[in-house]
């Protein structure tokens, strides 16, 4: 499954490259058209194929063992796909935030012609027009290639990212553990109703979770495949950069990646490795970070989260902490349970137990939990300093933020217990 996991990851990264090239053409060259989008697609596709061939040579080959479990996962994917398609056909514009933010931005890029920068008009502040443009750029690029504003495009792209989340999780676990946990991990993700609903909402949260997942998987690959360490770390950086181009929280995630590595280096006393690895990750993240920072500096209006004196005052208001902590506890307890069914957290724990019950091993991948935990810690801090009403902000966004780290957490739970020597 090594090849398949690399293919899924490279596909996710190629989508990021296509989106940024389409956008860069519109921004720097101007007059983006079907031809410019086709060129962007060809460039992203060619780069993806070359990268895949290179990675296949670097990474060890693990034979694919398809059995009844994989057929079960395939059947579950088919069932989820059917219901997803029904939802997309019934509500083609997606959830509220999809049409009020992401699809609206895509319409500005596609319909706007030379006036596409009106997207950043202060009158549109409510549509979060400072948000980065991976998803709108992707939708706009495909619309330009098709030559029409087909409403199915955002839904198809959202479905593609949901598929990539399940594909990267299960094939990534398979590449490392080579046992049943791989398809079980896919089933755990498919068995998270809120994740499927979030994916069908056509918002940028599910793609963000895919890039966070890809980063964590690539960091793990870098650990278990020393011969491919450099490209895996650089790609992990690139995936984190794509997360930053997807949503503002992605920029926080880039900081979390470096912060997490710093904590691990401090715990293990491997400072020299930290600087080397940090440099490799930074070199991978650089292209997307340059794009995001240029976008923030030259195009986007100022964001809504500023570290000013008011934010510091909110940070020192102790009454905000129990409110946020209680909302987090409520979210973890009700995660999935609010919709009925089995709590997905229990399923992820069972995934861990399945391996523990089978064989003696080690917990070398446990350290990767630092990334989802730090990310949740960062979200907690953001809620403390948020300029919005805290209760309102928590109610309307916390469920989505927890889902950002969910695929990565499932991957870590599935791969925590591994054979000695990995």
């Amino acid at each position: 499954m090594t090849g398949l996991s690399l293919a899924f990851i490279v596909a996710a990264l190629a989508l990021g490259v296509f989106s940024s090239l389409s956008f860069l053409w519109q921004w720097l060259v101007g007059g983006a058209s079907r031809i410019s989008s086709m060129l962007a697609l060809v460039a992203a596709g060619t780069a993806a194929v070359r990268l895949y061939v290179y990675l296949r040579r670097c990474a060890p080959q693990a034979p694919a063992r398809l059995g009844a479990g994989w057929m079960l996962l395939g059947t579950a994917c088919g069932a989820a796909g059917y219901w997803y398609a029904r939802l997309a056909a019934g509500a083609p514009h997606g959830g509220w935030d999809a049409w009020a933010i992401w699809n609206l931005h895509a319409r500005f890029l596609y319909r706007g012609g030379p006036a596409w920068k009106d997207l950043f008009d202060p009158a549109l502040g409510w549509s979060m027009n400072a948000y980065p443009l991976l998803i709108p750029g992707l939708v706009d690029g495909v619309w330009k290639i098709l030559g029409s504003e087909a409403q199915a495009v955002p839904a198809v792209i959202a479905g593609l990212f949901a598929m990539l989340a399940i594909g990267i999780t299960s094939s990534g676990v398979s590449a490392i553990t080579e046992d049943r946990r791989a398809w079980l991990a896919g089933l755990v993700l498919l068995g998270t109703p809120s994740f499927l609903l979030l994916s069908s909402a056509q918002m940028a949260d599910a793609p963000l979770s895919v890039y966070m997942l890809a980063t964590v998987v690539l960091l793990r690959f870098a650990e278990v495949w020393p011969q491919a360490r450099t490209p895996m770390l650089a790609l992990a950086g690139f995936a984190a950069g794509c997360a930053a181009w997807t949503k503002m929280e992605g920029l926080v995630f880039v900081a979390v990646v470096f912060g997490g590595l710093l904590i691990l280096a401090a715990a293990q006393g491997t400072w020299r490795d930290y600087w080397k690895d940090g440099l490799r990750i930074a070199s991978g993240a650089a292209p997307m970070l340059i794009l995001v920072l240029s976008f923030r500096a030259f195009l986007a209006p100022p964001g809504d989260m500023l570290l000013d004196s008011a934010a510091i005052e909110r940070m020192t208001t102790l009454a905000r902490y129990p409110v946020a902590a209680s909302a987090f506890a409520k979210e973890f307890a009700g995660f999935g349970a609010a919709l009925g069914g089995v709590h997905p957290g229990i399923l992820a724990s069972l995934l861990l137990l399945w391996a523990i019950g089978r064989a003696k091993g080690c917990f070398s991948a446990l350290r990767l939990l630092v990334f989802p935990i730090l990310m949740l810690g960062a979200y907690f801090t953001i809620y403390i300093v948020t300029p919005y009403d805290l209760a309102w902000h928590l109610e309307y966004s916390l469920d989505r933020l927890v889902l950002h780290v969910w695929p990565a957490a499932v991957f870590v739970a599935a791969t925590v217990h591994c054979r000695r020597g990995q």
Partner: protein
Amino acid sequence: MKRLLLRWSTPARIAVVLTLCVLTFNEFIFARLVSSDGVLDPRTLWSIRLGQAALALAAVSLALKRPVIIAFVIAAASAVNLSVFSKQVETTITDWTISEGPLRELRQLLPPDCRVGYISDEAPWTSNAATKRYYLTQYALAPLVVELGPAQEWVVGAFRTFDPGSVPPDLTVVRDFGGGLVLFRRLH
């Protein structure tokens, strides 16, 4: 942490921990955590029972050293959760459905490079319906910028009930699309 996990990773010990989890994963704790009034939705109760069953089966699986039971539990629970998603689909479609209908027609009447004003008998952000009306107008009319107030030459009115007397006198009706949607133009 690693040492602790290794020390505790014998199946029998974990089975004991799981049994304790079954006992503590109950409606009394949930009622405190997820419900503001201490009353749980029947779906949440059902979810707790399913969770307890899954944990109990996992404990049996570890005690008997039959991990295949855990695989079975995960597969069965995922099937249950998928059916939960399928049941949500119809409700979600109703919640998410929007119609641009007459706004598309209205867009054809506007010049291609203007700013559009927006007036209503219910200010945006005072209710969900009012916010949705404003956002939907902007979504349908993009790439034109729709700004609040009647200051522009072209103004879109999205009313619950259209009352011509409540509109500024220098605005003339270009077309009434029905359903409270009206296009105005300022008289110079």
